[in-house]
């Protein structure tokens, strides 16, 4: 496999999907009117940017963690970062409605984003601290402690939800599933600093990741200071995950499948794998978002005999598994390992 051919293809696909994302929707906008259509500027462009950034962030975070833990099933939520972020957001939603006496808090607030990042980073730090023995973190323990931290955070979230009212529940549900509905320029601004910091840190650490994925012993023999290196990769992944989840919620699958697909395209060299994982995941999330907006809801309504209460479309987090699971099955059963 040459490893070079996929770049133009990826770029082309991404461009096509982005244009489709901008032109389709409740109001179809012809290509020629795209540059100065008010809906594009006010609604679709910021949403597209959020989707692209969040997808790239989740994809790179997944690739980073798969490399650090040498575990192909690692995904952005592995360290409990997603669950921690969602818990903090739920806490913030409930606290805010208590304090302000509002029935519902708009989910666009900066404070939710900040709470999410703080909660996610805290959960990640806890996982890292728990997986350290004699000053060295063990990848196996990272996975294990991540499960514990994520499980505890989700349990607390569920408990909080028992006391929430209907409006809060609906809002919180969108965070736990993950949604890009109604994301505008304010979300682009919220996402941008974490995207800039996390993406550059993650992409620049590809050389280090290459050495680290050979195992601690070999990496040390190659002159790598293993623990600081691992901490840096984990930190980059946590920033990316916490940042993305704080704006779009706990969207699953793209951070798992993106890196796998990228690995099939460009191989294991992190210097190619990391950017490819970001691009592929951005592409997947854009496709899923397109799907979320155009998925027919009539059959759900017919089946449940009640209207679907999703005024701005169903959350994209519902679509990513629908897209991801068949794809993953195909990956596992139909695709032979690289020969």
């Amino acid at each position, binding site marked *: 496999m040459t490893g070079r051919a996929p770049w133009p293809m990826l770029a082309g696909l991404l461009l096509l999907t982005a244009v489709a994302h901008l032109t389709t929707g409740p109001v179809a906008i012809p290509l020629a009117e795209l540059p100065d259509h008010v809906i594009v500027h006010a609604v679709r462009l910021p949403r597209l940017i959020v989707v692209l950034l969040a997808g790239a962030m989740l994809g790179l975070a997944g690739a980073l963690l798969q490399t650090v833990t040498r575990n192909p099933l690692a995904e952005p939520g592995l360290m409990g970062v997603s669950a921690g972020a969602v818990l903090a957001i739920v806490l913030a939603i409930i606290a805010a409605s208590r304090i302000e006496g509002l029935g519902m808090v708009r989910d666009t607030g900066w404070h939710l984003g900040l709470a999410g990042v703080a909660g996610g980073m805290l959960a990640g730090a806890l996982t890292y601290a728990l997986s350290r023995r004699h000053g060295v973190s063990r990848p196996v323990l990272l996975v294990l402690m991540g499960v514990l931290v994520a499980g505890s955070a989700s349990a607390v979230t569920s408990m909080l939800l028992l006391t929430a009212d209907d409006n809060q529940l609906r809002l919180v549900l969108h965070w736990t599933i993950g949604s890009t509905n109604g994301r505008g320029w304010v979300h682009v601004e919220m996402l941008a600093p974490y995207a800039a910091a996390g993406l550059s840190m993650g992409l620049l650490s590809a*050389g280090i990741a290459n050495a680290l994925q*050979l195992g601690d*012993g*070999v990496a*040390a*023999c*190659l*002159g790598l200071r293993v623990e600081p290196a691992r901490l840096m990769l984990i930190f980059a992944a946590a920033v990316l995950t916490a940042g993305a989840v704080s704006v779009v919620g706990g969207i699953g699958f793209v951070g798992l499948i993106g890196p796998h697909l990228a690995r099939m395209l460009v191989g294991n*060299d992190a*210097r190619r794998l990391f950017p490819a994982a970001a691009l592929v995941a951005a592409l997947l999330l854009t496709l899923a978002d397109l799907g979320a907006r155009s998925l027919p809801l009539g059959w759900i309504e017919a089946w449940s005999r009640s209207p679907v209460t999703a005024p701005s479309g169903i959350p994209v987090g519902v679509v990513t598994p629908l897209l991801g699971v068949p794809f993953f099955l195909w990956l596992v059963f139909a695709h032979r390992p690289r020969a």
Partner: protein
Amino acid sequence: MMLAPNPETGLRAEALSVGYGDRAVLERVALHLPRGGITALVGPNGSGKSTLLKALARIMAPSGGTVLLEGQAIARLPSAEVARRLAVLPQAPVAPAGMTVAELVEQGRYPHAGPLRMLRRQDHDAIRDALAATGMTGFAGRALDELSGGERQRAWIALTLAQDTPWLLLDEPTTFLDIGHQLEVLELVARLNRERGITVLMVLHDLAQAARFADRLVVLHGGRLHSEGPPGTVLTPAMLAEVFRIEARIIPDAETGRPHMLPIRHLPDGAPAC
């Protein structure tokens, strides 16, 4: 540098003590490896061979004593500097699933190129040389987990060769290999020593092979240095009884002049060690 040539060119351990947590494994080991030769490190399972190798390569910090690489305390050298002078093959390394031989061997250039730089001409040359020396050129694009044990072992040795270091430390390079591939790897080591002047320290379990391919044997027993020297003086029935608890006959090999060993039986515990 205009300094006088460094009189100390070997790898030296002085009163080296190493442990895991509270458990001491090596106790005050003193060892000097001169430049140029092949040394085999032998000893029973758990005697501390891998631990000694890790301490010599600075992968483990000693609890006491020092390691001097060409006269410099290795603990005070930058990690990348150590990795440019001394390559190590750990015992039973595992590569991530799907990684190709070329991707693995490329990592040998890490201490030279650093984390941010792309590979340069000299890096590609070193990678090509390492693949050729180990006979792995034709396997460059193959995934490591689809190779035989011997091919995989050669790929890992190619990684250490790509590091292009004057020192090579190998921990059990022949485990899992059939006798043919064992000899192939040992002959490769001998050739690298002869043709490139690489100094080798390797852990071996087969004492006959150790005696055949190494200029010097170093025997570890229970975390202490038992004996060292040329195979002819170290490989004796007394040492075998004391360290490995076996009775064996030592026969000089007419062709190589090295001692050959014929194991006879295991000595029961408590039997007098000669």
